[in-house]
């Protein structure tokens, strides 16, 4: 049944998972608040492999529920965030991670904006410098004299 979700593509202007438009609402009991927060962060960061574009916490597709349950159990088992993300990417690839890992393939993605920003600021700096230099500043004394001469000679 759930496969059919991929066949339908409803249109809306903003956010929604394809057929199950309800965000998932479930109850998980944690030992402490930091576990709860880790659970929220992980299910926000990992992508539902079945939906068009939503994270685990925003989808009530069955596989999203399964994966949330998996995260929950692994958190209770005391596994770290890195271990849980590794577990997921081993099975579903980098596709499941909304935070793409930094490697040669994503270098431009992560550092492109910074490089562009620095390049832009550098260009502005040089333009400002040049513009100052080019400024037809006040005429020098000698130039003024020359101008006066020219004007005088015309008379």
């Amino acid at each position, binding site marked *: 049944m759930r496969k059919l979700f991929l066949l339908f593509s*409803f249109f809306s202007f903003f956010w929604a998972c394809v057929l*199950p438009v*309800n965000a998932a*609402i*479930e109850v998980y009991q944690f030992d402490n608040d930091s576990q709860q927060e880790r659970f929220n962060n992980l299910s926000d960061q990992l992508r539902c492999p079945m939906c068009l574009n939503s994270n685990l916490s925003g989808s009530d597709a069955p596989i999203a529920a399964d994966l949330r349950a998996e995260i929950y159990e692994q958190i209770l088992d005391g596994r770290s965030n890195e271990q849980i993300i590794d577990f997921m990417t081993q099975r579903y690839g980098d596709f499941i991670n*909304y935070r793409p890992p930094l490697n040669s*393939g994503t270098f431009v993605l992560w550092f492109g*904006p910074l490089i562009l920003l620095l390049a832009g600021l550098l260009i502005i700096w040089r333009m*400002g410098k040049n513009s100052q230099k080019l400024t037809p500043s006040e005429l020098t004394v000698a130039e003024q004299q020359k101008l006066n001469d020219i004007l005088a000679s015309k008379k």
Partner: protein
Amino acid sequence: MIPELGSFSLILAFCLASLMVVIPMAGAITNNQLWMSLCRPLSSGIWVFMVISFACLAYAFLNDDFSVNYVARNSNSLLPDRYKFAAVWGGHEGSLLLWVLILASWSYAVSLFSKNLPLDILARVLSVMGIILVGFLLFMLLTSSPFERTLLNTPLDGTDLNPLLQDFGLIVHPPFLYMGYVGFSVAFAFAIAALLSGRLDAAWARWTRPWTNAAWAFLSIGIALGSWWAYYELGWGGWWFWDPVENVSFMPWLVGTALIHSLAVTEKRGVFKSWTVLLAIAAFSLSLLGAFIVRSGVLTSVHAFAVDPARGMVLLTIMLIVIGSSLLLYAIRAPAVKGSASYTLTSREVLLLINNIILVVSTAAVLLGTLYPLIHEAIYGEANRVSIGPPYFNTIFVPLMGLLAFALGVGTFSRWKKTSVVYLKQQLSKVLIASLAFGIVIPVIVTSEFNISVIVAVVLAFWIVFSIAKDIFNKTSNKETFFKGLKALSLSYYGMQFAHFGMAVTILGVCLTSHYSVERDVRLAPGDSETIGNYEFIFEGVSLQQGANYQADRAVITVLRNGDEYITLEPEKRLYYATQAIQTEAGIDVGLFRDLFTALGDERGDGSWVVRIHYKPFVLWIWLGAIFMAFGGVLAITDKRYRSKKTVKQSQNESVLSGSSSSKPTMAAES
């Protein structure tokens, strides 16, 4: 008969648009006044036929004419009338019709408010808009006519509008968004007309500014409405997901913001002209990219229309022709454009350029993040797909916005040509001390914790607000009374300050909501309660309610504040009859300083329900900021100097007096 009339009107509009491309442009080239002056009646003719066509589709919807395929797919006899009307733009074909109607309206508006525009410029502008009209009308007539009939079996009833769209949001969000998107076509057309005529001067910038402001204000509201709609409709309490379709609406806004600032420099100082033209082209190009991404299904988005690569090909062709030729024209004409004025590193010119750099880099980052899955796949093959989502965008985008907020404060005090460093330091040090003091002390006292990212955001918000306040104070201090001083300031100055204030408001909203929201998913039986802060939520139970075209489980949640009864929230879970789709309706108490958000989940066997309860501080401020920004944009348009030619000189003098610009009017100094 009516749908055929609509179809026929589309064809007539197409014919007139074709004429509008050719005749006024030929007139402008051969200097034939009559041919040029035809652009006005042509644009009104196109507009009239587009309105007729749109009215025909609306009529078909309101009268349940299910023999029209598009109506049958997007409506149902049980659908309330207001949604039947909004369903006109609920699918690909109809929303394209709205897109073209709005494009025709903008070009009609240009012809109406063009009294002081030279005829040859108007002719070129409308001719360029005609090209876009022709492209999209052809697209609609060939592949996406909303008037197509189902020839054989007319269905007895329609399959209904997607329940997700049966909401007030559908009525207001798309028109505003499209007004914004499509509105950038005016700035685009002015840019192309200026490149064609070779008159890229301060006058061009002045004509373009109000149109850009208007489009930008619409887009600000449109994006805010979409975000707000997602927030209350989808039951997840989020308001932005960096989905490709959200991003493509955001990119024109970012570039449009850059354009507004760069136009100010070009108008006042006559510099950066070729850069400004490029931004004008880019803003509309990104709008077209948006249309492509939403309608081609090239990227995985939750909002895409039904995937159809054929439509994608047509749109790609339109983009190639419209954007490709304008960038070619740019490459040929722009190098000849010379800026003459000089400026220093601390001038307002350079600070506005820094604003432009930050905004353009932000746009580039959003574009890169949106398209990167494609780039990655093109290089590494489809077995290695990556996902780019909120963690990436937030990491890149948030620091850039911080930088922008900082530059905004500095820019407020800057002067054209040259700002004395001593003066800047003197002004900014006071603002800095005040914003640091307020920005650190208030969050620490209120939350009794030291959260560095919250403090940075609050300091920046105060930095903006205090800069504005100090600047207004400076500009009024030489007048006899404060209020006389306030009256002397120009509307465009107020517009600027309102928009900047809006940015501070949005920064606060985004930061405080993200950090201090309390989100609980709890299981409650009737009588159970959950407490967040000084609010206690008592779950009274769930009852079955009948709606017009759905039935709903409606929960009643009584909220106590400090033990006193405060409000009753009624989140619903609806089952729509026609589509059998389930849809949540959040129960929200909207407040200036916090929202109480409740959504209903599933029933558990023992009569208890899973309920989502959120406490979201300052969430309203996100959209409030956008309203301030849009209001600022509108204020700036109403400034006298845009109104007529005769008052130009006078208002310029006024604006110099009022201090909205410290440069002398440079219009005459151009060209």
